[in-house]
């Protein structure tokens, strides 16, 4: 028998295997499931199966009052609860024509940027862990712990804040807390460089990610990728800069985009790198906010029985996982007629089916991590 003949001609053939990844899989950060069809190590199809964490937050919105819905929005994305608070309040304020106090806006920006750092730390930390680097994860969580403590000082909660209310914020930020935040920033900025030494410039890490799961600009638009995933493809789009809201027009910050730093434009590494750069930008924003923090009330006077006029409104903010939108409809009563939450993870998840064709099983883990999908945000 000729030993170099292809395997098939010798009567052997390979068969596609269907395996279930998840719902309880360490790399899925929550309850996600993929039905993966593989031929050996190469994936021919990975079908996402979501819905394990569906808590019908949108339906609950029709049963509780406008003020009463704010704590529920926390649960949409538990890693970045502040943004869901803010975007719901923004939608309600836009409907009712409520003005937010200036100090309230700055308090919101400070809380949100702290939250963004915390969320990105989780994202890049767990990403490293999925790829096989355990130490950066511990470093990232250590820093996040400090932010959680600061958050506890600001609003009394560590994860689900319920801090931003219609008209402003629940509690004013105290001067001592401001000092502690700026102390944290002094400590944190060098940590980002340390993180780069540990992970971003690590040869093994780069080799695992460069050129893996490349997203083209056309796909990014067609699949409506948002946030760092969109910017990773080289599209400079940040809602804070392009559809200005809150105090962001007054602040100076860069919008980092992917450049194909180590591989191809739009690969997994670019998406990761944008998040690292955003950590530094958030620090910059925080320093400016602390400096500019004006005096005055933190919350405007808002009726306890909040009844916005009949109408509808769509508000969006730049959350850590991109464009988070709330579409609210009011029929003039105390309860919202409909609340719709549009999240970045949901659309990011829908592209996985396409990107996973032809990649290795280990790269699927890198792909999920680099898109930074968050199960509760997908299912809501």
């Amino acid at each position, binding site marked *: 028998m000729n030993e170099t003949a292809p395997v098939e001609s010798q009567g052997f053939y390979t068969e596609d295997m269907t395996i279930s990844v998840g719902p309880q899989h360490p790399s899925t950060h929550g309850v996600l499931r993929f039905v993966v069809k593989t031929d050996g190590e190469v994936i021919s199809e990975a079908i996402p199966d*979501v*819905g394990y964490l*569906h808590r*019908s937050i*949108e*339906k609950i919105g*029709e*049963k509780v009052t406008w003020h009463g819905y704010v704590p529920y929005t926390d649960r949409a994305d538990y890693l970045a609860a502040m943004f869901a608070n803010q975007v719901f309040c923004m939608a309600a304020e*836009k*409907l009712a024509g409520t003005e937010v106090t200036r100090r309230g806006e700055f308090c919101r920006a400070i809380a949100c940027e702290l939250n963004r750092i915390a969320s990105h730390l989780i994202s890049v930390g767990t990403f490293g862990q999925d790829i096989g680097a355990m130490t950066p994860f511990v470093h990232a969580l250590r820093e996040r712990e400090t932010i959680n403590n600061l958050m506890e000082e600001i609003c009394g909660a560590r994860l689900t804040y319920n801090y931003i209310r219609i008209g402003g914020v629940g509690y004013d930020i105290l001067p001592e807390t401001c000092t502690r935040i700026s102390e944290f920033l002094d400590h944190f900025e060098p940590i980002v460089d340390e993180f780069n030494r540990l992970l971003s410039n690590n040869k093994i890490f780069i080799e695992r990610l460069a050129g893996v799961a490349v997203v083209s600009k056309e*796909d990014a*638009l*067609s*699949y*409506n990728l948002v946030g760092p995933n969109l910017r990773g493809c080289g*599209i400079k*789009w940040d809602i804070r800069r*392009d*559809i200005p809201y809150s105090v962001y027009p007054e602040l100076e910050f860069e919008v980092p985009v992917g450049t194909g730093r180590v591989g191809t434009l739009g690969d997994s590494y670019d998406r990761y790198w944008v998040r690292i750069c955003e950590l530094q930008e958030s620090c910059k924003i925080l320093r400016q906010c602390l400096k500019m923090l004006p005096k005055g009330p933190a919350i405007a006077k808002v009726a306890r029985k909040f009844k916005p006029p009949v*109408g*509808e*409104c*769509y508000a*969006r903010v730049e959350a850590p996982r991109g*464009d988070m*939108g709330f*579409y609210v*409809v009011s029929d003039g009563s105390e*309860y919202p*007629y*409909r609340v*719709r939450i*549009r999240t970045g993870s*949901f*659309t990011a*998840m*829908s*592209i996985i089916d*396409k990107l996973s064709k032809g990649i290795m099983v280990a790269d699927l883990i890198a792909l999920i991590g680099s898109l930074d999908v968050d199960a509760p945000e997908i*299912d809501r």
Partner: protein
Amino acid sequence: MEVKEIYQLLEKQFPGKVGDFKGEVSEPYCSVNPEAIVEVSRFLRDDSKLKFEVLSDLTALDWPKEEKIQVVYHLYSYSNKSQIVLKVDLPRENPKISTLEGVWKVANWFEREVFDLFGVIFTGHSDLRRIMLPEDWVGHPLRKDYVEEEEYDGISTQRAPLVEKLLR
């Protein structure tokens, strides 16, 4: 470009297929006839002046009194920084509309969600399955008249009376 101008352009391009325009509300929107939704969206995406590259959101509203379900499309143009809202009225009994999968790929998942929670059928959709709820779930929860089944797979869905008193 103002939403009003976009609407006028649409009306010129598709006479009789776009309904009324509501500009006085906080969020201006155009009504579109159900059969024209694909061509209108393709025009909005491809027109060199409009360039609505992304479908930001696709959802539905249930209006039992008017006997209709409204499918709501939020389109956004990164180039022009403009937004347009399209609304399509469908009968509540048998809501059917063409899929936008061919225009924006993300519509696939958005439409699955609307199908799951509102029961709107998207004709031509490649994979119209429930997305949030299990395959054997009965009913479409975001409809206003949805009543939860008493149990699912032998597990009770009812709460203790104490909690019920606190609800509306």
